[in-house]
């Protein structure tokens, strides 16, 4: 790969908001809460499935300090989706601001806005509700059975794009894909595997839970300040849900304390906006951690059947994946997540005969939503474990087996066209893939050569090595759009206005780096503002691993346009043709000569002297590729056969993300995602009672790894150059979370011969496995 001389990108510069955040300056929604804001609290359903037969809010309404009580009887009934996605949304319309039907333990009954939290809580207690309790669907397998209770029996529920949807059978979405002849491929194989895997519930656990506030300004517009990944979708959906024009809504996103997909969803904003309208006062609503677990969003749990056929020489003859996905009480992101199980995972290995089915069902449990990895996490667990199982059957090293079969630069896959996001996808050839080098580098770091089969291992403590290969995408091609505005100031600084949302990822810094590199100036000269629907141009928001790749190109485009304007003015000032000058270190300089003018002189000239105009522009971008980042992950575990406990010793993640625009932040994304995936694999777990109530909704009993639990971690960035991306970049934020389930699962098998097909990998499960009585794989 040829060496490029970048000045600003590909450098670990100081994150532009590092100081502000380190000093704890007011930055987050909670910091900005007006002193007189009313506090919102929500009364939620104690039943998984019920109908409200009577509700009396009068006592609560009359309590001193209570300003409004909202329930289904006094708000608009407009069907919509809570999923923050492009329009028309691939998620079904199946949600109302409030409804008389309760669809899970935690569903909205009534909201109170009061002067203090204490009064609001007392008012909730004063609301009298009677329910007719209905039989509930609490397991994925039961959802589509004959006679199952119908969760969305309201007439309004419907799909808004032409996709299969059958609410009478609790089916929220379905997708099928067949390439070649799958059964024939299986028949040609020397060895086959056919197993069920289960991906359990998991939550994003952002440090900052969902939090929103709103007020009505003097022009009668609703100003919402909210912790969101999708300010523009939020504006659109709030306007829709309240039945008011988009022009009456403004959404401001300040700093965000983590989202990971949880905030690609309209969870609080509709109620906050409605309350502001109703009370004409600033209102504020923050989820408790318990509410975050139960009523926000989760990872779609999935039961999977994976089938792989292979020849003794290592050729994969057939690849089949059937996913039964639990979307919970609403269908948010159900279709697209399951599409990604196919499109972001199956192209990884070359194969002629591919079968894929995704079926998404409603249940009376917490709703799935977007979550880092977005389906790829689920499918990678099944695929990468099964790859090891086939490799063992044909007697090949699992690393060699993958190295031989994985997709390479220049390859394409029919899956790219066959599976898009709720519609046909976009053909693409892989333009950059350094997976082979990722595998080599990771194998060296973990010491793969010393790996022995589990049958050779004796004694109480048994170590094992496992690996997994991964891919993801970078933005949703031909659907997602990003835009940026750039304008120049007197001192040669620039305002970069972004619809793209930095939710703690560092994208403000990364995008400013791209602008500075293109303009030929320093990072300090770029003043970033993101995001505000009144001020910044449209961007779909932070999801689908799109910000660097997609919004980054919008920034690069606008910076190129502005650079041309600067060159033109500079040339005019130097009495040269634009082709005779160039930019360099915040100056326009003559290519052959001594003459130069600074950016500041250029800005002053264009503002105050001659041919005045505002140097600046706006640019937008859609992409036609979604170049996958690739990664090879390796885990070393030690199983204590005395107790069944699994100790993670070391974890290596080698990733190819093209040019890392900010290498430290890219590493941070890998480490963060890997930690996220490790704790999901090892300890995280939703526990439900037989009535569908989550019994561990708090950090006390919903276990996340602490720093003390983490293994030795090593991140290796293997550079490549993605020619369709800004300065060679592709995505890195999601892919890392997909590795730990399969890599650790494979390592446990290699340590002690126990194959775990559902997480988390607890001592209890390993013990059952050691005794040869692991129960059949099923849902929670």
């Amino acid at each position, binding site marked *: 790969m040829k060496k490029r001389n970048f000045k600003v990108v590909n450098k670990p510069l100081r994150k532009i908001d590092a100081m502000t955040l380190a000093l704890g300056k007011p930055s987050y929604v909670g910091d900005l809460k007006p002193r007189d804001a009313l506090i919102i609290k929500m009364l939620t359903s104690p039943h998984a499935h019920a109908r409200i037969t009577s509700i009396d809010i009068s006592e609560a309404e009359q309590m001193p300090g209570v300003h409004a009580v909202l329930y289904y009887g006094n708000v608009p009934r407009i069907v919509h989706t809570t999923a923050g996605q492009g329009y028309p949304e691939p998620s079904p319309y199946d949600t109302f601001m409030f409804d008389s039907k309760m669809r899970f333990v935690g569903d909205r009954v009534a909201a109170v806005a009061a002067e203090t939290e204490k009064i609001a809580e007392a008012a909730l207690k004063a609301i009298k509700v009677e329910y007719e309790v209905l039989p509930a669907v609490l397991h994925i397998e039961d959802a589509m059975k004959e006679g199952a209770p119908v969760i969305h029996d309201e007439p309004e529920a419907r799909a808004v794009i032409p996709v299969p949807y059958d609410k009478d059978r609790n089916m929220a979405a379905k997708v099928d894909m067949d390439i070649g002849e799958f059964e024939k491929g299986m028949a040609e194989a020397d060895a086959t595997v056919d197993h069920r895997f289960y991906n359990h519930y998991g939550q994003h656990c952002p440090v900052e839970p969902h939090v929103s506030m709103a007020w009505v300004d003097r022009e009668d517009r609703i100003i919402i300040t909210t912790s969101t990944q999708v300010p523009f979708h939020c504006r659109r959906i709030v306007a829709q849900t309240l039945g008011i024009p988009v022009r009456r809504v403004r959404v401001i996103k300040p700093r965000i304390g983590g989202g990971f997909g949880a905030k690609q969803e309209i969870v609080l904003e509709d109620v906050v906006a409605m309350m502001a309208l109703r009370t004409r006062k600033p209102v504020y609503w923050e989820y408790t951690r318990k509410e975050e677990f139960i009523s926000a969003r989760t990872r779609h749990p999935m039961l999977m059947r994976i089938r792989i056929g292979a020849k003794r020489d290592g050729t994969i003859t057939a690849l089949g994946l059937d996913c039964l996905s639990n979307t919970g009480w609403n269908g948010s992101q159900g279709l697209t997540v399951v599409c990604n199980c196919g499109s972001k995972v199956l192209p990884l290995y070359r194969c002629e005969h591919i079968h894929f089915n995704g079926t998404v069902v409603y249940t009376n449990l917490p709703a799935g939503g977007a979550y880092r990895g977005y389906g790829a996490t689920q499918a990678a667990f099944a695929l990468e474990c099964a790859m090891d199982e086939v490799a063992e059957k044909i007697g090949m090293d699992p690393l060699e087996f993958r190295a031989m079969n994985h997709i390479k630069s220049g390859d394409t896959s029919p899956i790219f066209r066959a599976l898009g996001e709720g519609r046909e996808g976009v053909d693409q050839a892989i333009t950059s893939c350094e997976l082979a080098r990722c595998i080599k580098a990771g194998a060296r770091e973990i010491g793969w050569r010393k790996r022995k089969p589990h049958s050779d291992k004796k004694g109480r403590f048994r170590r094992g090595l496992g690996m997994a290969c991964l891919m993801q995408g970078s933005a949703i091609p031909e659907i997602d759009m990003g835009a940026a505005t750039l304008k120049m100031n007197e001192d040669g600084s620039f305002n970069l206005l972004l619809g793209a949302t930095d939710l703690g990822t560092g994208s403000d810094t990364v995008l400013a780096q791209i602008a500075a590199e293109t303009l030929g100036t320093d990072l300090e000269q770029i003043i970033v503002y993101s995001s505000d629907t009144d001020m910044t141009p449209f961007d779909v928001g932070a999801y689908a691993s799109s910000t660097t790749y997609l919004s980054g190109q919008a920034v690069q485009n606008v910076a190129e346009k502005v650079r041309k304007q600067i060159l033109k003015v500079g040339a005019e000032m130097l009495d040269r043709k634009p082709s005779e000058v160039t930019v360099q270190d915040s100056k326009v300089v003559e290519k052959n000569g001594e003459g130069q003018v600074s950016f500041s002189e250029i800005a002053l000239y264009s503002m105050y002297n001659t041919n005045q105009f505002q140097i600046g522009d706006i640019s937008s971008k859609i992409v036609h590729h979604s170049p996958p980042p690739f990664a090879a992950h390796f885990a070393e575990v030690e199983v204590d056969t*005395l107790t069944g406990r699994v100790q993670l010793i070391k974890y290596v993640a080698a990733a190819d993300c093209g040019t890392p625009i900010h290498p430290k932040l890219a590493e941070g994304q890998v480490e963060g995602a890997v930690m996220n995936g490790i704790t999901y694999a090892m300890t995280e777990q939703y526990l439900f009672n037989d009535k569908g109530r989550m019994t561990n909704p708090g950090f006390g009993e919903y276990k996340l790894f602490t720093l003390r*639990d983490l293994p030795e971690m090593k991140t290796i960035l293997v550079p490549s150059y993605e020619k369709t991306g800004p300065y060679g970049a592709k995505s890195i934020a999601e892919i890392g979370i997909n590795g730990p389930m399969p890599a650790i699962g494979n390592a446990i098998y290699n340590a002690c011969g126990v194959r775990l097909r559902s997480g988390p990998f607890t001592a209890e499960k390993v013990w059952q496995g050691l005794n040869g009585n692991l129960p059949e794989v099923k849902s929670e």
Partner: protein
Amino acid sequence: MSPVSTLKTFEDIDCTFPKTLQEALELMADEKTRGVPLAGGTDLMVQWESGALPMPERVINVKSIPELREISEADNEVVIGGSVTHMELRQSSAVRRAVPSLAEAAATIGGFQIQIMGTLAGSVANASPAGDLAPSLLITDGTVTLAGVRGEREVKLTEFWKGYREIDRQPDELIVRFRLPRLPEGHYESWRKLGARKAQAISKVMGSSRGRMKDGVVSCFKVALGSIAPTAVRLYDVEQWIVGQPIHDETLKEAEQRVADAVKPIGDIRSTAEYRKWVSGRLVRLFLEELAARSG
């Protein structure tokens, strides 16, 4: 009463800070001034907040009463004040010499913040079946001293926990100190905790043992497990059986089986009954293996 005024917050609680034990006992003696004893608050604050316990009218802060803060060593025992914190337990060389498993157990409680706030008496009085300090206290055959204005009373620790979250304490009494016989020469202690992660993990099963080997056989063995019954328990039958036995694969297997048969754990949010039963036996096996290894 309006519904608002029935909702209490921490600020509504009346809190007294007695400077001496005598002052505290006098407050406790009178129903009008009596309050809930509050030490580190690491149990109480959580229980009030979650609604598991009602917020009281009054609390008596016992954490900084000087008489409750002391650790002293006598010939055969170590004496530990009720308000000694987990951090102090793990760092005290006196405790580490006299009851090493207690210091080890204290070091696994919560995280550093909890260890700095939480106290020995708090853990004992909270009487959770998952309280990590109980097994190490039980294997010493020591006592707890309670005091009221009428005087002091000493209770055997093996008789102090009456049932699930139930202790032998009168409403006017405070726990003042623990007297724990020190580890005799040639004896060894073991401690293990099984939790879902390394910090901030309530135990699935945990336990301690104190024992000795002489002339190739076990001459003394005391073992207690927690999180497997309404209170932490001593396994007297297993203790008696193992005394006089050599430690080898067969006796270990049998010990393991006897423990698993003896305990009747339940399944809950943290683990299953079956796993707890099995792993209880495994822990005792491990303790015996360690005893044999250390006794050389």
